[in-house]
């Protein structure tokens, strides 16, 4: 029997991996993957806590919305990355610092 705690642990692990990737990777694509991982950790939580609402299954439904939204944002993010690469010839976020003061 898989308990709620196990889901929590997996979710936390995913979140931590995602966070680590977001902070340390030097490639925008990899950062995007990290963000997806964090998002998936959140979706996993939604699904796991969905067991407390077996009547409406709002957890599962909200997770579906979140997946769709994630797909949309990823598409936007990939487009931005593509444009950034065109402009700067790099996708290392450390090199793209034109927005600073």
């Amino acid at each position, binding site marked *: 029997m898989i308990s709620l705690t196990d889901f929590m642990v997996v979710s936390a692990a995913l979140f931590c991996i995602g*966070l680590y990737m*977001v*902070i*340390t990777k030097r490639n925008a694509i990899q*950062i995007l993957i990290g963000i997806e991982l964090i998002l998936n950790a959140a979706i996993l939580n939604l699904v796991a806590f969905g067991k407390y609402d077996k009547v409406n299954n709002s957890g599962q439904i909200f997770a579906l919305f979140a997946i769709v939204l994630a797909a949309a944002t990823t598409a936007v993010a990939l487009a931005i990355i593509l444009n950034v690469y065109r402009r700067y010839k790099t996708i290392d*976020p*450390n090199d*793209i*610092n*034109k*927005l*600073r*003061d």
Partner: protein
Amino acid sequence: MEDFLHSIQLLNYTVAAVALPLFAAFINFCLPVKSKWAGWVSTIAILLSCVLSARVFAGVWNNNPVHAQHVWFTVGQTEVMAGLLLNNLSVLLLLLVSLIALPVHIYSTAYMAHDDRRSRYFTYLSFFCFSMLALVVVDSLVLFYAFWELVGFSSYLLIGFWLTRNKAVQANKKAFIMNRIGDIGLLSAIIILFTQYHTFDIVQLFAQKGLVAQSVIKDGVWIAATGQMPAIWQYVACAGIFLAVAAKSAQFPLHTWLPDAMEGPTSVSALIHAATMVAAGVFLLGRVYPMFTGTELTILAVTGCFTAFMAATIALTQNDLKRILAYSTISQLGFMILAMGVGAYASSLFHLATHAFFKCLLFLVAGIVIHEMQHVKEENNLDIDAQDISLMGGLRKKLPITFIVAVIGSLALVGLPLTSGYLSKDGILIQAFEWSEGKSVLFKLIPVLALLTSWLTAFYVTRLMVKVFFGEFRLLKSYPNAKLHMHDGGLQYKLPIILLAVCCLFPLFSFNPFSYGHAWLFSGLTSLGNHEGESIYHTIIPVLVNIISVVVLYAAYVIYTKPNGFKFQQSGFLYRLSYNQWYLDAIYQRFVVKPVLRLCSATFWVDRNVIDGFLHLLTRISGYIAKLTAWTDEHIVDGFLHLMASIVQSIGNFARRFQNGKIQYYLYSMLVIVLVLFILKILI
């Protein structure tokens, strides 16, 4: 009314007589230093002064005194008056000074003719005449003091006239310092008199029934009409006057400046240091005579007598022509002070007048002799002292007129009959004997000593005359090839000495050559002193004095004319005592000058090391304080500001780091902040 106009006229004449030399001094001061006219300007001024003085003298002598004064300045309630006082004493001195100054001026025009600074010389000389003439006629002690200082000052200038000679400079310093001692005395006496009597007026103070004559000393308190104070102050005032007299008139113990003062030109010695200025002390005594009573008079007599004797013994062995005459002057001044002390007021001033003529004459003669010796020295390039009498001799053939007048002057100095010196000197001796009568043996010693002194005078005068004018010219022994071109000099030399020689004879003073009591000058001044009583001394003393004087004279003549005759031993204690001037200079040098110098160097040391050291310490301390302040300012005040600035800057720098445009860094920071918040939340 007529009297009034008469006195106004006399006062105007007096002012003119006094002011003319000052005017001449001023003109000479403006003339170039080598001007030929300087001498004649001064001479004409003094000639006019002399004529005016004679007119004033004729008007005042034995008439009512003329006294006029004005308010000079006012201090609080006290009005200080200034004015002129013409009585017998002042007009006598007025005439005497201008009369002596006239031949000296004429003589000086020739004597100083080749000096490079002759205009300065006549400036000083005229200035001296002005000061001296003013000194004798002023009526206020303040003015008296002022002119007293001025005569001292002009004497200082003239002693050091040849300012390139070290000895002259030393001598004028010595004279000035010695006179300062006396000036302090006079000043303190004036202050005390003013405190007691509230006036400086000589007439009010010292008249026949003036304030001083009316004051008494009772139970140790000095009571006058105007106030009273402890009796000690009266003695202090008398001592002050005495000090002033001793310094100016060269009395023991302040006489040592006078022989050194002979470093000045001889004509100056004749006028200032023989005839007039040194007599100022006696004149001062004459002015303030009522102050002195009893013991004070005795002190005067003893000092005068001792000075006369001491100076005469010193004059016995000196070899410098002018020095002998200087000591002779001191000796004669001693006689005058002695006369004042024994109450022979008139005789003292009489002697002052006669002494002025014959001593001035002797100095002028000495001047001619020295002048001629100087010529011989320069002509032959000799290395000799032109004033050394041991090198002279036989000059009577070369300088006949000089010789004759010198003999007259010497006889007057010795006091032989038919000369003026006889009249005045015997007057003093006779009155000294009368004074000592009925007193103890010690008092009898004073006239005896005076008598002895007059014989010593006869001896040293003869020695001087013989060594200079008789025998052979001793210079030729050492320098046989020396060429001698000597002569009496021109009219400017001859006229003054002949004039003075005539004044040394008796007819000028008395038609009776044997009795001083008949001299007009004496009777004109007797009002203040005691009157003579006929006594046996009037016949014994003159006879005794003169017989022994003549014997001494002859003995000295014989001793010194015979080249191989009797010679005095020149090594005994008495000889050395006399030759070294009683060692007084050495004593002063050791006990006064050296300690003073040592004191000076000690105070100098203290000044250098203690006072300056203290100041340096202060400087250093304030330097350190300043440095400390600077350091504080730099490091603490500025440092605080810099700290603030750098804090702000570092905060800024710190904050800036977060704005580096790296997106991951932002994320990381956010994560850290969130974590911190959570940790804080858990902990708190």
